[in-house]
């Protein structure tokens, strides 16, 4: 699937809640994982980024140097942050804002609740560090927010370095 980039309107539109048992949502979940895997360095992807207004995203921070707790690759529907603490600044990028990075304060410890696609099983993920940041970034996408909406100051956006 193609990843849309800002200023695509769907990236700034709160996405709809979904029925996790809907076969279309199960296919979307698989497509998100496939698209994430196809992009080098991509640790998460939300449905609005591929042009679908749905509260569905995937995350996989396995092996990332900043990750501490990891839960492998997973997809969540209708996810919400229910607890957030230990706020820390950090620099993040986004496939939908490919030329910029930004310094954003995120909780380094979160509890996230969501539904598994297919079964609709409710799951609770307690995590920290980079996986917590990735979850907050993806949940923001589902709410129509980009990291640009949360940068820490006028000097907190940076042109991404291109290494030749």
């Amino acid at each position: 699937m193609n990843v849309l980039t800002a200023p695509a309107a769907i990236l700034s539109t709160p996405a709809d809640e979904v029925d996790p048992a809907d076969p279309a949502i199960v296919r979307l979940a698989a497509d998100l994982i496939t698209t994430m895997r196809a992009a080098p360095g991509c640790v998460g992807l939300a449905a609005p980024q591929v042009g679908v207004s749905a509260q569905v995203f995937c995350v996989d921070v396995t092996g990332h140097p900043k990750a501490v707790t990891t839960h492998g690759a997973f997809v969540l529907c209708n996810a919400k942050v229910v607890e957030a603490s230990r706020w820390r600044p950090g620099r993040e990028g986004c496939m939908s804002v490919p030329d910029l990075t930004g310094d954003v304060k995120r909780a380094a410890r979160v509890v996230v609740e969501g539904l598994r696609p297919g079964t609709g099983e409710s799951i609770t993920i307690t995590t920290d560090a980079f996986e917590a940041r990735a979850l907050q970034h993806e949940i923001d996408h589902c709410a129509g927010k980009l990291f640009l909406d949360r940068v820490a100051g006028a000097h907190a956006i940076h042109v991404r370095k291109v290494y030749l």
Partner: protein
Amino acid sequence: MHELAITVIGPDRTGIVADVAEALADVGANLTDSTMTRLRGHFAMTLVCTGVSADEATGALTVLGDGLLATVRQVEPSDQATPGAPYLVSVHGADRLGIVAAVTRVVAGAGGNITDLTTRLTGPLYVLVAEVDLATERAEELAEQLAVAAAELGVEITMRRAESELL
């Protein structure tokens, strides 16, 4: 003691800061606050310095040549903190004429004083982040007016309190 407000801008290359700072130091100019950054391949320096006359600073900077455009002007020292609480305004959307003009006019209309502002254009995406000192009782009014401006401009605008933590 008088202060000088100096700007220097020119095509980016290695050593601009060293050349300018050295030229000023050689005539006894003392740098105080400054920002220096690269804007689309141009290097831009804005600085305040003390200790020399405008003529001395101008003389020191004109010898730099090399495409560097410098301006020097004497200013009155001003270190007034503006009243109000710090807020952050983020704007992003499709580039079009007048985004900065429209957004900052709304901020000024609510009595917001912009203390720092950066814009970036990457491809079709325009991004503006402004730090604004604002009376807290006018924050809600400004947020509403920014939402109207955002709809008119077809951009996204977020306004929130800036956090400042003392450690």
